[in-house]
């Protein structure tokens, strides 16, 4: 959908980068890295690509984050005195604590000590991720490289996911040669939990990006994870050189219970002609519904249309409207 939107705005898509946050998490979990440290790594993941000594940089940041007053060797006596003074005065009336309690502070100090003990596992994980960070290419090439890296059992599901998405992208009109698999696709936000992607146009603009983030709802207050996907259009980049005008829009349901690929083809044709299309695999309750048969024909008001008769279908919808 993100890539199709770019194409409809007159911005031909050159490259779709695919990553998988689940792959990263699997690598992290394989060494029993706790969830908070996992988040820390995910939020620094781009460093592995940008800096030649990215592993050392991240470890330095980690050391800085888990350093506690007790682990600081040369703590001056004046500083210790200051720490005690603050602890004693915290009970005073009117003492600023923000929304935290003394117990919160104490617990986090302990957690930092525990996290500091994970440093060796973290280094091992970062070494693996550093190898992954420099892998990008077509799926078969990437699959071949991945099998040579330790822990390859971790990425079989990612390889399957990428293959599925590449197959569906082809149906949407984006051939395999436009897709670049980038196992470490660093997005700015650490909450991605599955497939991630970025879309680049022929003139090199990064115009869209997104992915799956089932944990996001919980992060903003929901009691449990909720399956979710989404993407962002970078409007400044997208509107650069934009020529196409938005078409007159009409909401439409395309119901394709038998074959998703046929549904996608019809949805694409209708979207290119200005319709806002919701694609569903089961019966829809929309105002206008087009049902797709197993043989790829479409049915609207008991009339049957082949893919080549899309314009006839649109004429029928317009008359009915």
């Amino acid at each position, binding site marked *: 959908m993100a890539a199709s939107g770019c194409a409809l705005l007159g911005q031909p898509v050159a490259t779709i980068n695919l990553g998988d946050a689940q792959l990263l998490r699997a690598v992290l979990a394989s060494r029993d890295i706790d969830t*908070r440290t996992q*988040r*820390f790594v995910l*939020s620094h993941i781009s460093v592995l690509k940008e800096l030649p000594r990215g592993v050392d940089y991240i470890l330095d*940041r980690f050391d*800085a*984050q888990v350093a*506690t*007053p007790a682990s600081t060797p040369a703590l001056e006596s004046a500083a210790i005195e200051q*720490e005690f003074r*603050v*602890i004693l*005065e*915290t009970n005073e009336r*009117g*003492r*600023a*604590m*923000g*929304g*935290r309690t*003394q117990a*919160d*502070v104490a617990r*986090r*100090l302990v957690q*930092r000590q525990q996290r500091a003990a994970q440093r060796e596992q973290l280094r091992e994980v970062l070494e693996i991720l550093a190898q992954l960070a420099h892998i990008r290419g077509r799926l078969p090439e990437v699959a071949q490289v991945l099998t040579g890296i330790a822990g390859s059992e971790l990425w079989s599901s990612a390889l399957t996911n990428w293959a599925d998405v590449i197959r569906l992208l082809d149906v949407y009109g984006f051939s395999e040669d436009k897709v670049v698999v980038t196992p470490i696709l660093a997005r*700015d*936000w*650490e909450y991605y939990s599955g497939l991630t992607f970025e879309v680049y146009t022929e003139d090199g603009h990064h115009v869209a990006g997104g992915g799956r983030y089932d944990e996001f709802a919980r*992060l*903003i*207050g929901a009691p449990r994870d909720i399956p979710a996907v989404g993407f962002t259009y970078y409007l400044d980049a997208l509107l650069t050189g934009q020529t196409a005008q938005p078409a007159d829009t009409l909401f439409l349901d395309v119901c394709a219970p038998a074959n998703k690929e046929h549904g996608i083809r019809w949805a694409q044709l209708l979207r290119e002609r200005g319709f806002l299309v919701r694609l569903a695999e089961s019966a829809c309750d929309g105002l206008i519904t087009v049902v797709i048969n197993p043989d790829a024909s479409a049915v609207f008001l008991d009339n049957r249309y082949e893919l080549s008769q899309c314009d006839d279908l649109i004429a029928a919808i317009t008359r009915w409207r």
Partner: protein
Amino acid sequence: MNNSVTLALPSKGAIAEPTTAFLRDCGLRVDKPNPRQYTGALPAVPNMAVLFQRVTDIVYKVADDTAQFGITGLDVVHEYPHENVLIVHDDLGYGECRLLVAVPEAWLDVTSMSDLADVALDFRELYHRNLRVATTFPFMARKFMHQHGIHHFTIVNAEGAIEAAPTIGYADVIVDLVATGTTLRENHLKPLTDGIILESQACLIGSRDALVNNADVREAARILLEHMDASLQGKMYSQVTINMRAADQLDIARRLVSNPLTAGLQGPTIAPIYGSHEGTSDQWFTVTLILANKALLKGVDLLRTLGATDVIVTPVRYLFMDHAPTYKRLCDTLATGVTALPRQAFYR
């Protein structure tokens, strides 16, 4: 007002008085008929009116071209960015302060932004709410938080006494301007080591449209910047007059020019003291030099070792170079059409 060019100045706040003092030092005296009036004049610049406004309103007035120039804080210019607002001079040398993130002193486990990012996640997981950030700078605060991986936070817009917010309980941390840090300490807050968002001070801003399209405005800019640059440069130097004994001027010149500390801006001016060489082969000379204040004492010590006596040091009020560097930079900016406000340049 019939004047064609207007300069907006702060009517109140921390930089109001320092601004009129700064302009006075630059030879740009501000005439304000009475304290309650919101208009005035700047006699040194022809046809220039002065409008007294709040610091944030100054940015708006320049943005919509009501005023063609304004002096305000860099902090508000960055908080309310506008494509028509051009930073003409970003180093006026007063009103220095920092926009920074501060947390309760009792948070012994938090010293850096990465600690704060971790605590923000604690708030989500333990209390099911966002970290609350009290500030009057929501734009920059929001951007800075995201830059440091803090995404789960809520901005609490506040006006005044922000330092009390964590004690009162309506916020957990603050983003505020800090000049000396005394108020922070008194409210039991501490800055984070990497929590400085912006190093701010007073700056001169201008209307891009007016500067591009109006020759009178450009001429006003030239006069303002000639005065400001000359005054600011002058503050960096002293005029040093000494007496030295030597065979001739060339001997003195050789001794002084051999060391950058005593060479002066262009070189020494040497004049003989008449009637001072009777009975000796040497003669007394008076030497005038312009030396940088930052190495003044070292320079004076060196002059003494070279034979200088009677060292007189006089402040330099104005130092006009062959051109005003800030005005030249402004002309280059206008000619190349560089983006009005280099917003990222000031973020650390």
